């Protein structure tokens, strides 16, 4: 079986306001960047992750292929999930052994989801992903559901100050990251939905990211210090979150165990709300010696559908720079950390 590695990563300078660019215009520079850094113009496989509901149009991912160059026809696939799952599909495809490179990308323009009153409609847009029988008719938005999980976590013996500490650290790290948003140090804030305050919640963000995977010797050719994927796994919990313990993430723990989540120096977690980082630290067994989200994580930039893929890219970047020898990337989708992917990489 061929070893598979991340050999290139690029992301946009993510933005909190609409730049006026279309999705393709936003995505094209990062595709160009990974093509240039690898010297590749064609890939054995191409897979993307995006969300039609962000664009408000069906099959909106098809037009994004303009940014790739798809003629003569390429071998291509798409997931209506965070692009970390597109990376998983590309990893599976590379395991077949008949191709040696794959392009993965994800993008999202959350700023164009605007309610009639001019406010961001992203929290309620996420209501559309819920069970249509028992949940969606009630209209619970994503912040409300996250707050429900935060309360379950706090009632299991934790303090609100723990959440604040995550928000403060994430925003500070984000300010030091040129690709993340420049968000102020959290001050006195009223609850958004108690127990979550605005700085515990992800900022509405536009952005895109791309990764190139390659196998064996090809990877060594394309990159001086590839980040070898030593384990990758994804698991999901029951969709009825009234049937599970919200204070813990069993699916993250299982995915971590299968992917070999131990002895890592850096972890990039797709924790979109501050309590999610703490639940994931527990589930993945990350001790205080592990640097978590040195990029600032999703609390500093959350280009929905690329946020998880960026975790893989950021973690791989720590390998490529020589800062770390073994890293972990995590991605999640669904309400209350319903589904979790863990990817462990080594130098």
């Amino acid at each position: 079986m061929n070893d598979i590695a991340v050999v290139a990563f690029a992301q946009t300078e993510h933005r909190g306001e609409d730049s006026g660019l279309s999705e393709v215009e936003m995505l094209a520079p990062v595709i160009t960047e990974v093509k240039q850094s690898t010297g590749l113009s064609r890939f054995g496989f191409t897979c993307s992750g995006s969300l039609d509901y962000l664009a408000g149009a069906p099959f909106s991912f098809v037009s994004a292929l303009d940014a790739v160059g798809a003629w003569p026809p390429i071998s291509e696939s798409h997931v209506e999930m965070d692009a970390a799952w597109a990376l998983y599909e590309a990893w599976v495809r590379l395991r077949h052994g008949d191709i040696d490179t794959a392009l993965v990308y994800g993008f999202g323009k959350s700023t164009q989801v605007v309610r009639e009153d001019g406010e961001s409609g992203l929290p309620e847009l996420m209501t559309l992903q819920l069970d249509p029988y028992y949940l969606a008719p009630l209209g619970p938005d994503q912040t409300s559901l996250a707050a429900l999980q935060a309360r379950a976590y706090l009632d299991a013996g934790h303090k609100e100050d723990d959440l604040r500490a995550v928000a403060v650290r994430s925003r500070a790290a984000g300010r030091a990251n040129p690709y993340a948003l420049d968000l102020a140090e959290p001050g006195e804030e009223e609850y958004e939905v108690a127990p979550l305050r605005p700085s515990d919640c992800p900022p509405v963000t536009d952005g895109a990211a791309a990764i190139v995977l390659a196998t064996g010797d090809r990877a060594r050719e394309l990159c001086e210090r590839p980040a070898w994927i030593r384990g990758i796994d994804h698991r999901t919990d029951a969709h009825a979150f009234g049937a599970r313990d919200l204070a813990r993430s069993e699916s993250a723990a299982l995915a971590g165990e299968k992917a070999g989540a131990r002895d890592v120096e850096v972890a990039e977690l797709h924790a979109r709300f501050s309590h999610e980082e703490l639940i994931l630290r527990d589930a993945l067994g990350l001790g205080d010696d592990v640097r978590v989200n040195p990029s600032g994580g999703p609390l500093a930039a959350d280009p929905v559908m690329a946020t998880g893929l960026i975790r893989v890219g950021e973690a791989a970047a720590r390998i490529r720079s020589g800062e770390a020898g073994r890293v972990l990337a995590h991605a999640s989708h669904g309400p209350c950390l319903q589904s979790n992917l863990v990817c462990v990489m080594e130098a």
Partner: protein
Amino acid sequence: MNTQFDSLTADHALEFPGGYTRSVGPVIGRFLTELRDGRLVGVRTADGRVLFPPVEYDTDGTAVTGEFVDVGPECVVGAYAWVPRPRPGHPLDRPFAWALITPDGADTAMLHVLDLGVFEPGAKPPKTLRAGLRVRPKWRAERTGTVGDIEAFRPDVTMINAPVRADYRLSAGRALSRFLGGVAEGRLLGHRCRVCGKVYVPMKGMCPVDGVPTTEEVEVPDTGTVTTFAVNNIPDPRAPDVPFVSAYVLLDGSDIAMVALVAGVPADQVRMGMRVRAAWRPREEWGQTMANIKWFEPTGEPDVPFDDIKDYL
């Protein structure tokens, strides 16, 4: 990224006009039908647990039995989230909580709405909101077979509020009438006891120490000393905004402190021994009432040593 261009924008809506029609199947269908009739049911799993709301498979992937079980209406709250400012798509337009609600007799929970009767936008979570709160459904009068047939869940009744009122006409009595007559003229009157010599403001017509009538009238100034005080955090229509200070003020020349408000100084800067002066309302508003004095304010004089007031606390 280059943003130096004129970007065109257009409003756009994604909608299924009339809604999206879905089959619910026999399990969810049974639940929704019972709900329309005002009943809560769960479904029993092969290992004997009761799933609520019912789903076709348990979390291990085993199909549930066809046995439906009445649960509730008594329910218990698990995790909850307080919404101080509802969003447009929310079920209530005033503060409420989302909650995971498990009916008695069930082993799993349902997300629903908790109405704690809070109306003030931005309100903090009520202290009664916590895991373990007992609640029951508030049914809509017209039900159609959706989860919204329950308008919200409400806490069980644990307290009632019983109005109490009786009406009176009270006489002030001779001494207090005389005192308030003085206040109506901007004067503070008291009596000196002929036995012990103490001056009582206001006077009662009796010395409570010696038990003898008092008649010698004394006028005292409207300045005095705070002997002790309390910071009040419960609003009172007669007082300044909370926190406000109520204090014992020992008027100069008097031997008994009177209760009064102290203002014109932050609550945390009021001290025992602080010198104060009455702040009178405008003369045209005066009547035979202590309300002529709004409150006492600091004079700025040096504090009185504790030893000088220790006998008046």
